């Protein structure tokens, strides 16, 4: 751990992207589950996710990064799904 003499005044973080080291997945009580057959690849989940926990590869939703997903449920709420069926459903953690 750093001593006070080693800190940046004002607690300014001078390094970009350092929040990647702060894994927040353990905060989760509900977990999003992706249902690919109902997914229309609109990427609304990716757009809304406050923690960049939606994994997109080559422009396609491929699942969640559970190291960072806090389980807020915004993705599931915004998901339009297909024919009334959601492509993201929230389930209790540990189910």
């Amino acid at each position, binding site marked *: 751990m750093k001593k006070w003499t080693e800190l940046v005044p*004002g607690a300014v973080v001078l390094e970009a992207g350092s929040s990647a080291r702060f894994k927040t997945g353990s905060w989760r009580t509900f977990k999003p589950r992706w249902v690919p057959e109902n997914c229309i690849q609109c990427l609304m989940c990716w757009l809304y996710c406050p923690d960049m926990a939606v994994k997109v590869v080559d422009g396609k939703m491929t699942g969640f990064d559970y190291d960072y997903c806090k389980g807020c449920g915004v993705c599931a709420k915004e998901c339009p799904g297909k024919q009334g069926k959601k492509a993201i459903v929230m389930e209790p953690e540990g189910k």
Partner: protein
Amino acid sequence: MGKIVAVTGNEAVANALRQADPDVCSLYPITPQTDIVQRFSSFVSNGVVKTELLNAESEHSAMSAAIGAAAAGGRVITATSSQGMALMWEMLHIASGMNLPIIMPLVNRALSAPLNIHGDHSDGMGARDTGWIQLWSESAQEAYDNTIMAFRIGEHMDIRLPVMVCMDGFIVSHSIARMEYLEDEEVKNFIGPYAPKNPLLDIEHPKSFGPLILTDLYHEYKRLQHEIMGRVKGVALKVSDEFAKISGRKYGLFEAYRLEDAEIALVILNSAAGTSKDVVDELRDKGIKAGLLKPRLFRPFPYEEVGEALAHLKAVCVMDRADSFGGYGPMFMEISSAMYQNVGTGRKPKLINKIYGLGGRDYMPHDARQVLLELHEIAGGAPVRVVKEYIGVRE
């Protein structure tokens, strides 16, 4: 040298801000400070400053915007009084915690309730622990000078802290007095161009302000803040020396008036110090060795220097234009702390505390005379009747 004018304290401070030509001014009007931002808004409208003016919807927002603009990398000002600063409260701590040198004139005014718009020091004294540097001013001239010096102190690379420059509401802010402006060019050269530190708008070097810091490091960050505050005294004196060269006016950490050979003294802030000095002179003419100490840098407080300056006295009255209900007056607590450090040397005057002038109640020469005569009796061996007492109050 600059020109001699007759202006109000607010006009003087508004012109100091104009001469500093800040990048951003976020404001919300409140009596008795309104006049400052109103005048500054005219400067913006008339194009005499390059400042981006932001009319916020509250003081909380005004300070929030000031913090954002300062973090972005700009020289930032605002101004407030009383309830306005009370509404800024949480943001005051954030400005200092993020080391953002925002400059804010505080036109001292009483706090509600009951509602009152006149001058006392409840607002500034309440902000004692916000981590801001505080400079207090007796007159329009001192408020103008302190405002100019505040930029140099707050923006110093070893410090980077917000500064509030205090002056008495109405008594100074709205009274016309003789004072001297420095030339625009002199002030510009003295303050210098703004040098940002870790600006957010430096997009080549991305960074974050305001991280979550829990039990593992918060204590260390506060230790660092304490360290930085400790550097202010030296910088303030150095800036003051340089300011004396361009202005001919020399400021210390406090003003000692006829104190060196005094036996009794008042410790008193801001405009009431002027009234008191006249009475000190009057008592001196009668052979009573009276003196006065007027603090200027209140945060950080120069305990050692003040303790040393008062140590030889027999009796001192600390005059507070604010009360800490259930405690002594806020200035009394500081002076008591300063004097206790001298106990080891065996030099400690008797101390009393008077609360005066709340809500703009007049402080008259007879008030100063009454207190100094009481000190004269205590110095002569009379017992201290009561430590803390309201004066100028109907009984």
